[in-house]
């Protein structure tokens, strides 16, 4: 099964969709297709329902966090230095915007082929984290998309029941993001000697003594 062929077939049949082939340099050779969010559902439906493809089994869905990076490059610039045009090396810092990526691994139970890897990227990591939900297309996305919402904070539009899956509902942060820091009120399990114990003690000493005694009483 050729990903190029699939790409051109999908592009021919789903009007307006933009697919991008992302090469995978590892020996696994599992290359992937990057979907655009607007046409993702249509592409997914096409992949699921077309008789020669029939990717009816959405096996694995997961998120990847790509935080924004600052890449410093040394480039040679022609510049007027002391009135003379010279070639000068200059470091230029370019900021690559971060994004959250959702990866889908599809297989076909009927045709027994696969996998085909799909990806989608959010615009950024803060506000534009909306992506279309695939739950109406593959039921198996239900819990996995909830998990991605829970751990990465991607909002899936069209998901019937988008709640946190593993963390509790009042939890604020998204633990699987790369820049996640443990909250201060984390229940440090005191171990014999490492920084966990220190942090626990530090936290307990910082906590309001009144609150502490209240907590004790409630317990």
């Amino acid at each position: 099964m050729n990903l190029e062929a699939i790409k051109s077939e999908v592009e021919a049949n789903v009007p307006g969709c933009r697919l991008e082939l992302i090469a995978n340099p590892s020996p696994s050779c599992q290359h992937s297709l990057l979907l655009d969010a607007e046409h993702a559902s249509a592409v997914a439906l096409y992949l699921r329902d077309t008789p020669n493809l029939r990717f009816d089994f959405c096996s694995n869905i997961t998120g990847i966090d790509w935080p924004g990076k600052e890449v410093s490059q040394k480039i040679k610039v022609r510049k007027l230095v002391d009135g003379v045009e010279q070639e000068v090396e200059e470091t230029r810092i370019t900021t690559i915007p971060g994004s959250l990526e959702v990866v889908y691994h599809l297989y076909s139970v009927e045709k027994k082929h696969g996998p085909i890897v799909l990806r989608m990227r959010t615009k950024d990591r803060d506000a534009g984290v909306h992506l279309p939900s695939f739950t109406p297309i593959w039921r198996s996305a239900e819990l996995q998309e909830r998990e991605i919402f829970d751990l990465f904070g991607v909002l899936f539009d069209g998901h019937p029941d988008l709640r946190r899956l593993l963390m509790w509902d009042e939890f604020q942060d998204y633990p699987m993001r790369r820049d996640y820091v443990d909250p201060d009120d984390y229940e440090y399990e005191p171990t014999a000697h490492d920084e966990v114990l220190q942090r626990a003690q530090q936290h307990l000493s910082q906590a309001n003594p009144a609150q502490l005694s209240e907590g004790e009483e409630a317990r």
Partner: protein
Amino acid sequence: MVGEGILKGLAETARNFFGSYVSKDRLTTVQYPEQREPQIEATRDFPFLVYDGADWQQGMRCVACQICEKECPPKCIFIEKSKDKKPDAFGKMQIYPATFNIDISVCMSCQICVEVCPFDAIKMDVEYHQSSDDRFGALLLNKQRLSKSNEYYNAIHPTEASAVDAQRAEELAKLEAKAKAAAEVKAAAEAKAAADANPALNASPQQPAGDPQ
């Protein structure tokens, strides 16, 4: 006929009921404190440090290279290097661990430390009576509590330990041969030097300064 399957099941449990009185295969329970299962050789639980000879401080194989500390997945090993050096089993001067602690309340017995250790210094124990009422002190094993003799290691994992011993003996032999060869070369050189120089001045050969620790 309704009830046939139920009767079959009843027959099966009855068979097991009587079978448990006659057959050892059926009644597999081991009455623990009185009876013990034979020790399976590969069994592992927590790591220990191997030492050669009689003195655990002198014979400790560990050279505080801290590889195990780095590779330990739950990070339960804590090592501090010593300031001074002591000779190891091969006679080479090595650093030794000033502290070597393993927090076995964190350790998950994965034996990755054993696999990565290049000195055969850390091995897996089989001692499972580790329960204690002191959660911190008793479960944090220090250097002394971790040290077990090579004989002990040979007793609990005979196959593995004899392979390790053989390998070490080979290494030692190699080293000795090398040292011997070096000594011979040196002796020859000295003899030559002595022959060249005035024999009267060379009455007492120089002793190496300072005793090995």
